[in-house]
């Protein structure tokens, strides 16, 4: 167990330091996220004339679209450094379990998404005039569940894409679809409680349960499959 923590910490710290120095992932995420939010903000302004109460609903969607696409873009690069100079073989030659590599990479991706959210969430709240009175903790919980789901699948597929050169990113979007429905519904109910009847999931609690179940299933499945993904 001590050895697990030692190698887990080594990989986690290495990835964070590498990213902070290379500055490849976060700037890309922020630019793409801002662009998505800005475009949807323009659409929202037009929609307000037809349906004055649409901004909170579009805001919820804008936040998830920005998180999903920026997250996947960033995660595709999370194995790019391992590909340079065949570093992945350095990892595989060490007596480190593939599961440890996966969990460390997963945590790095979750942390990157959290940093991104610290920037993008206030922007979305201001742009779409969202009101989150006394429900900050709930908002953070929903976003964290979404983070974990996106990162769980994204980490596995980034390894496959980088090491095997397949264009499998599109598959990630399909796999994440069952989580994006309750995730978007949860934020719509949070930002516009009066329109709860319009969302596809029956209640906020059901949406959270779906997201927890998705995270549990996909973190476990991807953790088990990761060893096969990175070995030739």
């Amino acid at each position, binding site marked *: 167990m001590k050895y697990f923590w030692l190698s887990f910490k080594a990989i986690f710290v290495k990835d964070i330091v590498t990213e902070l120095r290379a500055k490849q992932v976060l700037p890309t995420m922020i630019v793409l996220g801002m662009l998505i939010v800005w475009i949807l903000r323009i659409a929202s302004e037009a929609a307000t004339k037809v349906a004055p109460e649409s901004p909170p609903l579009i805001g919820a969607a804008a936040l998830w679209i920005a998180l999903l696409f920026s997250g996947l873009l960033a995660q595709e690069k999370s194995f790019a450094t391992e590909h340079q100079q065949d*570093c992945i073989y350095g990892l595989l*030659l060490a*007596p480190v379990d593939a599961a440890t590599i996966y969990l460390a990479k997963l945590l790095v991706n979750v942390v990157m998404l959290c940093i991104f959210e610290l920037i993008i969430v206030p922007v979305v709240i201001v742009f779409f005039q969202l009101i989150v009175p006394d429900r900050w903790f709930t908002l953070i919980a929903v976003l964290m569940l979404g983070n974990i789901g996106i990162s769980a699948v994204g980490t596995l597929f980034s390894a496959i894409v980088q090491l095997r050169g397949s264009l499998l990113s599109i598959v990630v979007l399909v796999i994440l679809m069952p989580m994006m429905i309750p995730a978007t519904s949860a934020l719509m109910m949070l930002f516009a409680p009066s329109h709860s009847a319009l969302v596809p999931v029956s209640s906020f609690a059901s949406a959270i349960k779906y997201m927890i179940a998705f995270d549990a299933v996909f973190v476990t499945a991807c953790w088990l499959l990761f060893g096969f993904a990175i070995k030739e």
Partner: protein
Amino acid sequence: MTAINKDKEKDSADNAAVSVDSVSKAFAARLVLDNISLGVAQGQSVCVCGVNGAGKSTLLRIIAGLMQPDAGSVRLCGHNIRTNPEKAKPQLGVISHKSMVYPDLTVFENLSFFANLYGVKDSAARVDELLEDVGLSSYRYDRATILSRGLLQRLAIARALVHRPIVLLADEPFTGLDAEACQHLISVLANFTDNGGTTVMTTHDINIGMKCCDRVVVLDRTRLIFDAMMCDIDTISFTQDYLSYARNKN
């Protein structure tokens, strides 16, 4: 170029540092290795020669556990690399023409990272010792990305030795190195073997291979066609025979 000393195959006993037993590998319909057996005793340095596409790198990747053979097994110091990797992997260090180090980490950070992965005790002291050995002490705070090819190869050597392995695999380690860097690498390999380490190296440059090894093995497409100790062969006529064979193959 046709004789194989059968005595060498007897080395593939359990006490050999590297024991390759009846390994075969094919990529789709193309057979790359066919029933290869090779035993390397502790302290021995073996040069695996062959033309491009002979299967040298595939053999080394299978020994390292990076690739699974279709048949046969590999044991490092008696531990099967597939079924007992947690015991086999710490015995092994690997150098290739790519450094396997992170460009955005410093020299010290790279070595500390790998030392931690292998659970090296007092990793900072071990890294300092290695930096001194390979002559990189003055570069310890420099990022790997600014190092020259020769310095990067020194860092790669330090990375491969950070956990004090017993077996060192070197896949075309001299590629892209200048004469001084080649000489440094030869002395490091010699030092490693003198201290009881076992080296298996691939190269297509027979001259450099003979300089730093005490046994030479020639791998033709799919099979071993020559295996002899350096002390048992006439190096000049062997080199001529090998170069003539390589020209015909290419």
